[in-house]
Structure formats: C-alpha cells, structure tokens
C-alpha cells in the first residue's frame, strides 16, 4: 500500500505561507500512518486481518454505501429527507449521505434520528422508525472505515415517492383561507386555524391526508371539528389569521376519532372501522405547532378528505385520560402524576397518543387485565415535546371489560432540564400554552355496538366530571381566581344539568377574566344558565353585555335572538339576528331563524329572499325548502308547495312533518289518494305525529270512510288538551255515521259535552253536534232542548244556513228519530 506524498495529497496548495501551515495536521497524520505501516511490515510478513486492524484502515472495508448503507437510508430516512418534505436536506444519494456522515452517526447513536421516542420491547407499532443496534453499528463502521461508495451494481433503486395526494384525488379538499406568516425568529408558535367546510351533506370520512403546506415549518398538527361555529369568532382577535392559545371544548375529535399529522406520517389507508362523520356546517380546526427557520415563512395548510360509503363498522371513541391539577414547584425534578380508569365494557385500542409539554421526562402508560396481566401501552424515557405523535398498534389491542388503564408521568422542572422554558425555573401549572404543562393519555378505542358506546360514554363521562371537579377544586385552593378552574367547574355543573351550581362560578369567572372575547363567552354561558334558572331579566342583561363587549361575537346575537324568540318577542329577536348577520352574513343558522320569523310575521317577500339566499349558500338547505313550501301553501299554491316539500324530503328524508305538509297540499288539490299516501308516509316515520292523524281522519271523513276516519281521530285525540274541532268532528261521526259498526253514541255524547263545556255553549255548531249525539243515544228530550238552543244561537249569529239545518234535525228529534248521515256513494 503506497502512500502518495505528492503535493495534492497532503494538501499543499500554491497560495501562501499560512496555508502550508494549516495542513500540518494532515502531514503528521500521514507520517504516522506511514510509520505504523512500515513497522508492521517489518515485524510480520503476512497480511493477516489482525495486522490490518492495527492500522488505521485506509481504503479497506467490507461495508459500502451501495450495498449496506443505502438500504437503511432509503427505508428509514429518505421519506422525510427529500425535496419538499420536512427535513432540511436530502438523503437520497451517496453524496448526500457522505456530506453528512459524521452527523448521521451522531444523531442515530443518540436516537435523535430517525425520530421514534417510544421504547421498543413492548407492543409493536406501525411504521416504527427505530434503527436496530446492528444498523447503528453498520453506519458507524462505514463512516469509521472511510465511507466507501462501493459497487454501483449493489445500489438498490432510489425509492420512488408518490407526488401529490398520496391516496389519489380527494373527494373534498379544505384549506386555510389565508396563509399565516411565520416570523423569522423567536420561539415556537402554537396557533389554531378555523377552516370552513363548504356546506355539503353529512358525510362519513374514510381517510384523510393533511398537507402542512410548509413541512419545514409545521412541526405537528392536531385536527378537530367545531360544530358550534363559535371558534370562528376567535379568528378576529388579531390581524393575522388564526388565534393562539386554548382550544376550548367546542373543538373536538370528530365522531370520536383523533386526527393529526407529524413529519413523515403516511396517510392511513381507508379503515372501515373508524370512518368519522363530517357534519354539514361544522368547521374544521387545525391546531398547528410551528417552528421558526430563520427566515419569514408562509404556511397554508390543507386537508384532503375521502368519503366513506357507510358509517363506521365499529363505534370509535376517543378516551382522554389526564390530570389538570398539575402544579410543579421550581427545581423539582421528579414531579409525578398518575391517573387510572377501569373500562366498563369490552373495547379495542387502535392507537395511543401521550401528551405533555417541555418539562415531561418519563412517560409510562399500561394496562392491567382482569386476570392481572400487566402490559405496557407506551413508554418514553426522554420525552421530547417537539416529537409528540400518535402511535398506532400493529394489531388492535383487545381490552376486556374490567381492564384498568393507568398513566404515570414524571416531570423535571429543574435547571438541569435543557428544555425548561423558564430560566431560572418557575412554578408551572396546568394549561394549554406551551409554558404551562399537561399530562394526558389519548386512546383511540373502538367499541362493538351502540349499547357499549352509550355505557362507556356515560361511565367515562361521569368519571371525567368527577376527576375534573376534584382537579379544579384542587386548583382553586392555591389559585382562587383561576379562570381555568372557575370556568371548568361551571362547565362540569352545566353538563350535569346543575345550572344553580354553575352560576356562582360563572359570575366569578367573568369577574376574573381580563380578555374580552373569553369574558363574552362566559357571559353567554351565564345567560343560558340564568335562563334555565328562570331569571330572564338577568339572562338578557348578560347577553346584552356579552354582545356589547364583543360585538364581533356573532353567536352572541344569535343566542340573544333565540332567547327572545323563546319569549315570543319575535320583533326584538329579529333585530338581534339581523345584527348577527351583519357580522356574519352567511351564517346559515341565523339566516334560518330570520326566515322563520319573517314567515311567521307573514312578510312573505322578505322571507322568500332569505330562503333563496340560504339556498345559494347551502343548495340543499332543508329549512329553506320546507319553509318555501309552507310559504307556497300560504299563497294558496299547492303545486309549488309540493315541489319544495319534495326537495325538502330529499334533503332530509326522515322528517315526518314534510310528508304531512305534502299531504295537506295534495288535499288542497283534492288529490285524496296521493294525500293519504303522504300522510301514511309521515306516520310511518313518526307514528305519533298527531297532525297527520287529524289530516288523515278528515280526508277519510270526506271520502265517507268512517271507520278509518274514526281510528285516526281517536289517535289524534290522544294528546293532552286536544283541539275542540277534532273532538267535535269525531263526536259527529260517532253519532251520525251511516255505518252502524262505527256509531258509538255514548262516546259521542261524552265528546260533544266536553266540546260544549269548553266553548261555554256559545258555539252553535257544537251544540248542534251535541244534540245529534243525545238523539243517537236515545235521549230525545235533551236532544230537542239542545237543538233549540243551537238554532237560537245560530239565528243570533246570522248563521242562517246552519240554523236551517238545525231546524231540520229538530223535526226528526221531535219524532224520536236520530239524525243519520247519508251513506257515501
């Protein structure tokens, strides 16, 4: 082996004195090598491997990039280390890897890369990115031995990655309306972005792909839905899109499924077990963790959604077990929390997602089966907040009823923790901001059936309320003005339907809140509670105050409108809805309410324009179709009414009232067969829709089918306080039907007497029906007397036709003959 001493190899360059000196180290190194080689050569003539190991290996190694290292890099690194992905440089070629080789050794040895914090040796996860001990050694040896490229024949094919959407064109794509500008410097940013979903039907989502837009900046994303649309209002807190801070309870994992993204996450293939519902009108919320890169960056994230053909096969449930009374003193390096819950039903766990902030150190969660077997769900020895992730089990984990789930986390709030955000360390309490701390274990469960879901939901729900109560009360001991605890306790009592207990906490929370938007939200909550407590004046005051301090809170106007509507103060309600619309002109919920009121006020042109506006925003809006149908009925246009009601039925097939209205419209057109069909359809959906019974009864009566008429009248009259008209109509049939199997004189008398009593014997036709009932029952004296009364009344009221009819019947009664209707043709 010859050592080349030419000027190039020892780096002597024709530049100047300084440069020669700089290569002294190289010269020495080569001299040493030469000396060693010579000395070895002198003592041993064989080129044994032992001898070779005594020499610094130059150019001799069995490990090459092409054969041994490339496969590792391609399978464990390249998916992120390639253009357009999260990593700052590519690792796709020999040159790439060579120019980072020492760094690669170091970051793999320290287990910083590839990022996979969980300890192995427990339950296996999907897509585990850990390198084995052998792989680590290989990489190190390769670098040590000169990092040879090797034979190109051995190089495996560079992995090919799908560009664009990984699962193909999505059925629906949603994205942030405006890009967010991430500053060049400063610390990490945690920001929430409300993303509107174009109004569509409800859908189940089988798969999704989140695209950060700027994968070098977006470090992590949590995705939720907000069905209340209330988080939209927070978007206007400052000029930049989105808002910082707490994601309140309005934003939830949709349908009990966790959605998220981390660098390198491959979108999951459609899983029929856990498709999740995207409800029409709900907003999506992207909670993003952003890291500065040193230059100003733009972030516009999007999400592709793939529809499922049917609801999930199993019932998903997100279980979030955690502690909110975290309170870590400065300097404490072993603060520990522990929480447990026992499952009341069978379940399968699909994934686990531990969560803590900067001070988290040791994460451990495990289960104990009813037979005593203990299994670790996840363990992380050096928690890194920047690399939190959701870990999916390779096989769904069966958890029989009675399984105890426990989390035990330890925190380090000492100065020795380099990730401590406070310098010197400060007291750290629970909170969602990154300077606060959290301790949570999120489990994605699936349940076998609705019963189990209900049971778990109830049981875990009460458990959460109990834990929350305990946690918040604990917090109040040291922090009596903690808005988190005050608001939290109010929320607990509200969900337990104990508004009286919630009220004092809300009042105190409002007092303690300095932030207008959150104060306004608390005031809204207070208004609802006070209304429930029968304090309408206070409730209204709270609402007015809320909308005054935060006029942008469209929801405030909406609630104020609702409140006034419930008091039948429709004009005032309308005024408040309109102000809400000023802030949020396309708010479907408010538009629907305004349309309702316009219709109620018979302001038909205004109502029409509202409904047409709704249909522009939401082309299948049920409310708009239904109300337009009602409007057409009012305009005596049953053909158009039917058209709209049919559209309404298409939009929401399971609303009985729609078919009832169709029936009414058909009835107006005397299309009795079709009317009957419609009413029957309504009753199929809701057998207790009493209006439909009444309508059917009246049609059957018209058609002379008294048996059916009576049946439906009787059904209709089951309601408490039935309308008199129906009572009396039934009485009439029961008294005078030509069909003797239908006649029931006693019942007729009873019904007609009720009718007469309720109307204080001041309605002639009712007295007439009563008389007929008496006659049918053989009580002719009473019949005559009542008929005479009726006739007199009719004359007085100028109802001459009715008076004539009554007189005719009177003559029969005087003959002791009851009145009978003619048989229907």
């Amino acid at each position, binding site marked *: 082996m010859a050592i080349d001493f030419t000027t190039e190899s020892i780096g002597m360059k024709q530049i*100047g004195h*300084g*440069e020669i*000196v700089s290569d002294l180290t190289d010269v020495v190194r080569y001299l040493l090598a030469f000396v060693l080689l010579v000395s070895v050569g002198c003592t041993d003539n064989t080129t044994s491997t032992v001898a070779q190991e005594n020499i610094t290996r130059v150019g001799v190694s069995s490990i090459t990039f092409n054969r041994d290292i490339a496969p590792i890099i391609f399978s464990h690194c390249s998916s992120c280390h390639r253009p357009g992905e999260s990593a700052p440089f590519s690792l796709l070629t020999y040159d790439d890897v060579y120019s980072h080789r020492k760094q690669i050794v170091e970051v793999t040895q320290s287990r*910083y*890369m590839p990022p996979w914090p969980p300890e192995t040796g427990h339950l296996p996860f999907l897509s585990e990115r850990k390198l084995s001990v052998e792989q680590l050694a290989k990489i190190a040896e390769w670098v040590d031995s000169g990092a040879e490229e090797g034979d190109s024949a051995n190089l495996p094919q560079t992995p090919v990655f799908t560009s664009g959407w990984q699962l193909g064109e999505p059925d629906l794509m949603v994205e942030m309306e405006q890009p967010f500008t991430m500053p060049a410097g400063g610390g990490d940013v945690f920001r929430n972005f409300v993303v509107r979903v174009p109004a569509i039907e409800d859908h189940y989502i089988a798969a999704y792909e989140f695209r950060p837009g700027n994968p070098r900046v977006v470090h992590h994303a949590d995705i939720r839905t907000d069905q209340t649309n209330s988080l939209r209002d927070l978007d206007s807190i400052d000029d930049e899109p989105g808002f910082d801070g707490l994601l309140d309870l309005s934003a939830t994992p949709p349908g009990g499924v966790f959605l998220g993204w981390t660098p390198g996450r491959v979108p999951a293939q459609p899983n029929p077990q856990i498709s999740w519902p995207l409800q029409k009108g709900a907003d999506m919320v992207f909670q993003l963790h952003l890291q500065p890169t040193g230059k100003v960056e733009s972030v516009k994230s999007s999400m592709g959604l793939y529809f499922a053909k049917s609801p999930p096969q199993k019932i998903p449930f997100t279980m979030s077990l955690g502690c909110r009374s975290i309170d870590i003193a400065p300097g404490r390096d072993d603060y520990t929390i522990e929480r447990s819950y026992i499952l009341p039903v069978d379940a399968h766990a699909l994934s686990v997602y531990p969560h803590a902030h900067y001070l988290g150190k040791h994460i451990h969660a495990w289960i104990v089966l009813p037979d005593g077997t203990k299994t670790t769900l996840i363990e992380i020895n050096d928690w890194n907040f920047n690399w939190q992730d959701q870990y999916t089990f390779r096989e769904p984990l069966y958890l029989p009823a009675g399984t105890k789930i426990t989390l035990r986390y330890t925190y380090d709030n000492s100065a020795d923790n380099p990730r401590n955000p406070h310098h010197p360390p400060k007291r750290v309490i629970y909170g969602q901001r990154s*300077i606060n701390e959290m301790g949570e274990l999120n489990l994605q469960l699936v349940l076998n059936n609705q019963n189990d879901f209900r049971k778990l939901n109830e049981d875990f729900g009460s458990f959460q309320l109990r834990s929350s109560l305990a946690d918040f009360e604990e917090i109040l001991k040291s922090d009596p003005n903690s808005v988190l605890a005050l608001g939290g306790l109010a929320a607990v009592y509200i969900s337990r339907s104990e508004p009286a207990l919630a009220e004092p906490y809300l009042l105190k929370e409002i007092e303690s809140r300095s932030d207008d938007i959150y104060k306004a939200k608390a005031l809204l909550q207070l208004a609802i509670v006070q209304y429930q407590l029968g304090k309408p004046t206070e409730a209204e005051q709270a609402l007015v105050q809320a909308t005054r301090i935060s006029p942008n809170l469209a929801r405030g106007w909406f609630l104020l409108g609702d409140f006034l509507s419930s008091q039948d103060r429709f004009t005032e309600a309308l005024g408040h809805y309109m102000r809400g619309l000023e802030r949020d002109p396309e708010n479907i919920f408010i538009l629907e309410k305004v349309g309702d009121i316009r219709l109620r006020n018979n302001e038909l042109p205004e109502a029409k324009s509202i409904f047409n506006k709704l249909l522009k925003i939401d082309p299948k809006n049920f409310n708009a179709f239904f109300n337009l149908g009602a409007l057409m009925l009012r305009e005596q246009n049953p053909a158009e009414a039917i058209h709209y009601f049919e559209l309404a039925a298409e939009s929401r097939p399971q609303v009985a009232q729609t078919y009832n209205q169709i029936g009414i419209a058909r009835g107006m057109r005397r299309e009795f067969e079709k009317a009957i069909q419609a009413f029957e359809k309504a009753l199929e959906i809701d057998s207790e829709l009493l209006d439909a019974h009444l309508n059917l009864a009246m049609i059957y009566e018209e058609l002379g089918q008294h048996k059916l008429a009576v049946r439906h009248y009787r059904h209709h009259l089951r309601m408490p306080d039935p309308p008199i008209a129906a009572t009396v109509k039934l009485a009439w049939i029961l008294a005078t039907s030509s069909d003797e199997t239908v006649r029931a004189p006693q019942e007729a008398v009873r019904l007609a007497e009720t009718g007469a009593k309720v109307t204080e014997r001041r309605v002639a036709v009712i007295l007439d029906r009563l008389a007929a009932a008496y006659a049918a029952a053989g009580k002719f004296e009473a019949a005559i007397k009542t008929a005479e009364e009726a006739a007199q009344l009719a004359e007085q009221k100028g109802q001459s036709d009715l008076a004539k009819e009554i007189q005719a019947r009177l003559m029969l009664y005087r003959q002791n003959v009851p009145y009978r209707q003619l048989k229907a043709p």
Partner: protein
Amino acid sequence: MHVNQIASLLLCMTLTSCSQQNSTLIDSEDQPFLLWQSAEAPPATVLIFTRTDCPIANRYAPTVRSIYERYHEHGVRILLVYVDPKETLSSIRRHLDDYQFPCHGVHDPLHELVNLVQATVTPEAVVFDSQRRIAYRGRIDDLYVDFGKVRPEPTTHDLEDALESLLANQPVAVAETKAVGCYISDLN
C-alpha cells in the same frame, strides 16, 4: 492536541506576517476576499461558518442580523463563510437574500479559512481581536444543547458577550465554547 498546538502557534506567527496573500477566495460581491484588508485590523473580525442547508445555522439568521446591526457601526466586521464546496456564487447570494443577511458571504470551497481556524461545525463563530488573535470561538449562544435538544430560549449570548468585551478593551470571559451543528469535516 499537541499537533494542533503547534499548528496554531505557527498560525499566529504567519498571520501577522501575512498581509498580502494570493487568495482565490471570492466573496458574495464577486470580489477577491482578503481576511485582512489593511495593516490595521478592525476592533473585531467575526467569521461565522455556515452552510445553506444547515437548519441550525439558518435558524440563527435573525440573531446574526441583530448582532450585525448592533456592532457593525462600531467597526466590527462580520462575514459568513460558506463551507460547502458545492455552493455557487448565485446560491450564496440567494441564501443571503432569503435569510436577509446584511453581511457579506465568502465561499471557502477548499476550506482554507476552515483550516486556518480549525472550525469544526456550522454554525460556528470565530472572533479575531484587533491584534489578529483568536479571542473567542464556539457557539453564537446556547440555544442548542445538542441535536434535538433545543432550549425554548437561549440563556447565554456568548458571541455578543465576546464582542462587548473586545469593544470595551476587556478580556473575553469565556474564550471557547462548544458549538452544536453540522460537521464541516463531512464536506471533505
């Protein structure tokens, strides 16, 4: 280490006598680069070794900018030294532009400057005093503890402290710190 000591000793000797070099270093203005532009050196000369694709170095851009803005008018000379041989004049200029660096850069493909001061990682700061002696070397601040271990905020500001001391004619309290970043030797 013995070898390095010899090297630096010789280095100091040669630097003082080496005012006119035949350098092939070109700066980002496409001008020949000279480490020492005149017989009298500025109060401090700062070389910050960097790469365009090093995320740690890039994250320091705002900090470097603010240091430049603060000390430039006191005569401190600050330069970014690009150590990746594969860089070009346009890629360096684009990088300076993207990250809004107010200072100049210089491409060091043959690692002349790297070897001159024995820089090992990017970003690494090396500060010469007015006597052309190395007064400080190491990290810019302690934001990075290690790969993957980043503080929410730096707790020391080593480069700035060194510059303050030099401008006040005080000895630099901490002359050497360990810098965390991408290895320059990987580019050999």
